[in-house]
């Protein structure tokens, strides 16, 4: 697989994930002798590109702090005064205060993270370190599930959960996480564990440790970067998840932030853009914070698996 190839061989146990940093130091000298002019041009192009990319998001932020009608008048980023009216209006615009939806989202996200970490790490250990009958086809089947569209599963799942009276609960959204259905993370962790030297397992085994102990005391502490990447990706995936939340959460009391934001579009026309912008910003803050503090793991995790 592609992934195999990008794994550098080195003493670093976090080999799989260290692609970015290792390579960076290796290649740098090659390009040192460049003319300053071409360097300036390149920086200018990149800065222009970066501004273009980020402008809409900054404008969203600035506009949310202006009077609501300015959204359709002022394309600039200059903020003359800070006006929190949109935030106050938006917070109270829906059936419940926006805090209700935020809390729902937080609970769902935390549950999803715990579920994915536990179930995927367990499965990954078996695939990466243990021999058992059916391993080959199970691993292949696991990879195949990455390709299967959710739509082919969600109709019967919905029927099943609705017959059990579990629509408008978090069970349909959380149960899959505790059963390792996000095969991508299993794959990420398998790749990572394969990069951990087997000598460590052997040493523990000679000392009399069984598989549970090897897993918990040897492998798990060493795979923190992979766990962190999984936690962050799960956070962003669950926080932004719209499709399944739209299907399973129809009662406003249990709805999450994305579904709540959507009801802004339902309730009124363009006049509510101020509230919408403000609550959009509120909904993006956690993602932004995760990006800020988890970037290291994000960048490396992406380089490892090609996750979004």
């Amino acid at each position, binding site marked *: 697989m592609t992934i195999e190839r990008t794994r550098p061989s080195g003493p670093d146990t976090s080999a799989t994930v260290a692609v970015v940093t290792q390579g960076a130091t290796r290649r740098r000298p090659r390009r040192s002798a460049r003319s300053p002019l071409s360097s300036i041009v*390149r920086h200018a192009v*990149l800065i222009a590109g970066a501004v273009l990319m980020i402008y809409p998001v900054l404008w969203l932020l600035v506009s949310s702090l202006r009077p609501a009608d300015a959204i359709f008048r002022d394309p600039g980023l200059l903020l003359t005064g800070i006006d929190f009216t949109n935030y106050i209006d938006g917070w109270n615009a829906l059936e419940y205060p926006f805090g209700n939806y935020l809390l729902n989202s937080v609970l769902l996200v935390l549950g999803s993270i715990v579920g994915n970490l536990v179930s995927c790490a367990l499965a990954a250990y078996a695939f990466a370190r243990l021999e058992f009958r059916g391993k080959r086809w199970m691993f292949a089947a696991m990879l195949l599930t990455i390709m299967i569209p959710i739509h082919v599963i969600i109709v019967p799942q919905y029927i099943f959960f609705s017959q059990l009276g579990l629509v408008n609960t978090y069970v349909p959204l959380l149960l899959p996480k505790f059963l390792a259905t996000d095969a991508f993370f299993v794959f990420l962790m398998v790749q990572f564990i394969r990069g951990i030297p087997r000598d460590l397992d052997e040493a523990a085994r000679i000392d009399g440790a069984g598989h549970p102990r090897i897993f918990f005391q040897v492998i798990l502490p060493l795979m923190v970067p992979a766990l962190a990447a999984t936690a962050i990706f799960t956070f962003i995936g669950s926080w932004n998840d719209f499709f399944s939340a739209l299907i399973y959460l129809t009662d406003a009391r249990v709805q999450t932030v994305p579904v709540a934001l959507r009801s802004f579009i339902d309730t009124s026309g363009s006049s509510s853009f101020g509230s919408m912008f403000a609550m*959009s910003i509120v909904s993006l803050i956690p993602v932004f914070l995760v990006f800020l503090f988890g970037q290291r793991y994000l960048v490396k995790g992406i*380089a490892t698996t090609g996750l979004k």
Partner: protein
Amino acid sequence: MSALGELRSTAKTGGHAATRKRESKAAYLFLLPWLLGFFGLAVLPMAASLYLAFTDYNLIRPPEWTGLENFTRMFEDARLMNSLRVTFTYVIVSVPLQLVFALVVAMILDRGMRGLPFYRSIFYLPSLLGSSVAIAILWRQMFGTSGLVNQLLAMIGIEGPGWISDPNTALGTIILLHIWTFGAPMLIFLAGLRQIPAMYYEAAEVDGANRVQRFFRITLPLLSPIIFFNLVLQLIGSFQSFTQAYIVSGGTGGPADSTMFYTMYLYQKGFAELDMGYASAMAWGLVVIIGAFTALNFIASKWWVFYDD
């Protein structure tokens, strides 16, 4: 006796079979959650969905076997055929464009330049935000008749159209949103570029190869497995996109069904009209399409993907 026999056979194989058995048992325990999920939440629902695809079912009355009717209906359903056209246009335009952008920016950044982490972060950020409802809402405003884009155009004296209310441009705005999130594949390309040994370029330079030749003879072949990997992932993901089109069009797929993605039509059939049998048949249509595209990709890869080991 049997215990003794077991003991003897264990002794004969040097205890290997026993440890293997123990390891197997441990493995299945570790795999238990995944096995439950795989069979209970993937295989079983898929089987159920396959059955439902041949029935008429609306959640209230029990499913009624209708044979191939759902599938023949699909071929006669003009809205479905339109949704396929919309989805294919979206995938075929946005996936290659996004990857080209990702590769170009990665190549510009891969020069050991100052400020690399800064640029990398800025270009990557939209990938994280792009799948959110919040950004889709922003897009809905930006490309509205008096949205941000037209406000900016007005400053240079151009009166822009209502991008989202015009069937000719509505899909384009969603394609643009997809391209905007080129940061994730860019990061994969960056990692890939780092893996190309510098000496290849040095040798080529000594032999007088110019920049274009170095790109087509060294960078592209050595990067091809990663391009392939990105292409497969992006195709699978793009065929399933839903949120952006749903929000930008206000849940309608309009104007004139111009942003009615296949997945949105499926959602409408299954969860608004509760036509579960038809929705299941549609879902299998999507499986076939994604499967076919992925298979085609793998077959075609023999000609253009280069593995150096």
